C-alpha cells in the first residue's frame, strides 16, 4: 500500500477541543454512535432541510458543504471538525477545513462504505466518481485509465493514468478495490 494512502480510525470527540461538529455523508447511523459531538450534520438525499441544532439534515452533499463553509468562516480556535462518508466526501471536507485555516490536529476523517474511488484523469482533468475497479474508461477523454494507489489530498482523488499508453489496446486485467 502506498504511503499516500490515508488510513482511518473510528471517530470520537478529541478531548482537547471545545466544540465538536460531525458531518456525515449518507443516512445517519444509530444515535448511540454519536455521543460527545455537539452537533451532527447529515447529507441525506431527499431529506427536508431541518433547522434543529443538534441534528441537521441537508438534501444534498453540496448544500452541506455550503453550510459548512459559512460556519467555518465564523468559527474560532477550539473548534474540531469530524467527517464520515466516502473517501471523496471526507477529503472534500478536509480541504474546506484547510481553506478556513484549520490544521491537521483539528480535523478527523473516517471513510466508511464501499471501497469506491474518485479518480482524477491526469490527461484531461476529469474527476471520475464511484470507481470500483482499477481500470476505468475516463468520462472526459475516453482513455483507459489504470488507477494508481497514489491519493491526492488536494484533489481528494486517486490518480488515473492511461493504462495502454505503451501498446494501445493491451490492458492489464481489471481488479475490484479491496478497501
Amino acid at each position, binding site marked *: 500500500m502506498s504511503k499516500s494512502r490515508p488510513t482511518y480510525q473510528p471517530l470520537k470527540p478529541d478531548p*482537547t*477541543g*471545545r*466544540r465538536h461538529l460531525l458531518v456525515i455523508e449518507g443516512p445517519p447511523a444509530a444515535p448511540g454512535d454519536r455521543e460527545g459531538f455537539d452537533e451532527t450534520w447529515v447529507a441525506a438525499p431527499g431529506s427536508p432541510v431541518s433547522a434543529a441544532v443538534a441534528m441537521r439534515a441537508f438534501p444534498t452533499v453540496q448544500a452541506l458543504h455550503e453550510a459548512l463553509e459559512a460556519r*467555518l468562516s465564523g*468559527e*474560532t*480556535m*477550539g*473548534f*474540531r471538525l469530524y467527517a464520515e462518508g466516502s473517501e471523496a466526501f471526507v477529503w472534500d471536507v478536509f480541504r474546506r477545513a484547510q481553506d*478556513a*485555516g*484549520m*490544521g*491537521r*490536529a*483539528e480535523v478527523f476523517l473516517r471513510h466508511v462504505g464501499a471501497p469506491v474511488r474518485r479518480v482524477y484523469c491526469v490527461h484531461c482533468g476529469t474527476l471520475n466518481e464511484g470507481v470500483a475497479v482499477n481500470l476505468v474508461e475516463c468520462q472526459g477523454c475516453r482513455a483507459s485509465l489504470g488507477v494508481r494507489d497514489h491519493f491526492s489530498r488536494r484533489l481528494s482523488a486517486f490518480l488515473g493514468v492511461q493504462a495502454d499508453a505503451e501498446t494501445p489496446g493491451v490492458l492489464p486485467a481489471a481488479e475490484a478495490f479491496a478497501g
Partner: protein
Amino acid sequence: MIHGDPIIARIRESRPLSPTLKRLVLEPADGAPLPPAAPGAHVTLRLKSAGRAWNNAYSLVSEPGRRDRYEIIVRRVHASRGGSAHIHDTLAPGDLIDLSAPINLFPPAASARRHLLIGGGVGVTPLMSFPPLLRALRAPFELHQVCSAAERGVFEALLSPHGPDVHIHVGRGAIDLPGILERQPLGTHVFVCGPEALMEAVTGAAAAAGWPASSVHQESFAAASGAPFTAVLARSGRRIAVAGNQSLLEALEAAGVDAPSLCRGGACGECMIGVLDGAPDHRDHYLSGPERAGGALIMTCVSRARTPALVLDL
C-alpha cells in the same frame, strides 16, 4: 560547544532604554556582511571577564535580513549568573565580542492565518522581529505586551511603530488571556515569550480554550540559577562543581567538556544528556511529562539537580 565559527563583532552603540535595559548595536569587526537572520532568530554572545565565561543567548531585534548590524536588548538581571551585568557595566562602544551565527528556533508559522503575539517584559524581544515580516506579507497579527508600570513608556516606544494592533498591558491582571484566546479565528497561532508564569498562563488558557498544542509556541531564555550541586561524568569519573549562579551547561563548558547545546533556553533539545543517577530538576520545555518523570534525561542549559549530585552519561 557552539555550532560554527564565531563572528567577531564590534559594539557600535550601547544605549540605555531604562535603568535596567540596554540596546546594543553590533557591527561586523571586519566590515564583511553578517549572516542574514530571519524573524525570531537569536545569537549567543561569548562573554569573558576575570576568569568567568558566559554564553548568553539574545534575540535579534534588528530588522530581519539586515546584514550590516545586529541589535539586541539586554536586561540587567540582579543575582543572576552575571553575564548581563558584564554587558551593562563593562562592555563599551568599540569593544570586540564573539558571537554565534544566528539560530532560529522560534520562526513565524508559515501556515498560520493569524499570529497572536504575547510578550512579557524584555521577553518580547524575539517577537519584535515578527511584525515587519507579517506586515509585508499582509498577514494579520495582534501583539500584546505585559510589563510593569515603570517600563510602559519604554515598551510603548519600542512597539508602537508596529501599528494599531499593538496593546500594552500593565501587570498580568490587566490582560484578559482567556478572552483573547477564545475569540481568535480558526488558523491562529499564538507565540508567547516572557517569564515562566506568563507562559504557563498563556499555554493554560490556550488549552482551556481548546487550542491544539501544535498552534501554541513558546520560547524562554530563563536564567538557570539555583542551589549548587556536583555533576559527575560517568565515563571519566570527573566531578564538576556547578555553582548556584551558573548553569550545568556553563559548568561543563568551563571545565572544557565538549557538551552539545543550541538554544540555551530549554526549548530545542540539542543539549539533552542521559542521567544515570540523581534526580534532575527539570526546567525545560522539551521533555514530555513521562520523560520528566522518568528522570533519565536532562537539558543541561536550564535544568539543575534536586539531589547533591547528578551522574551524567558523559
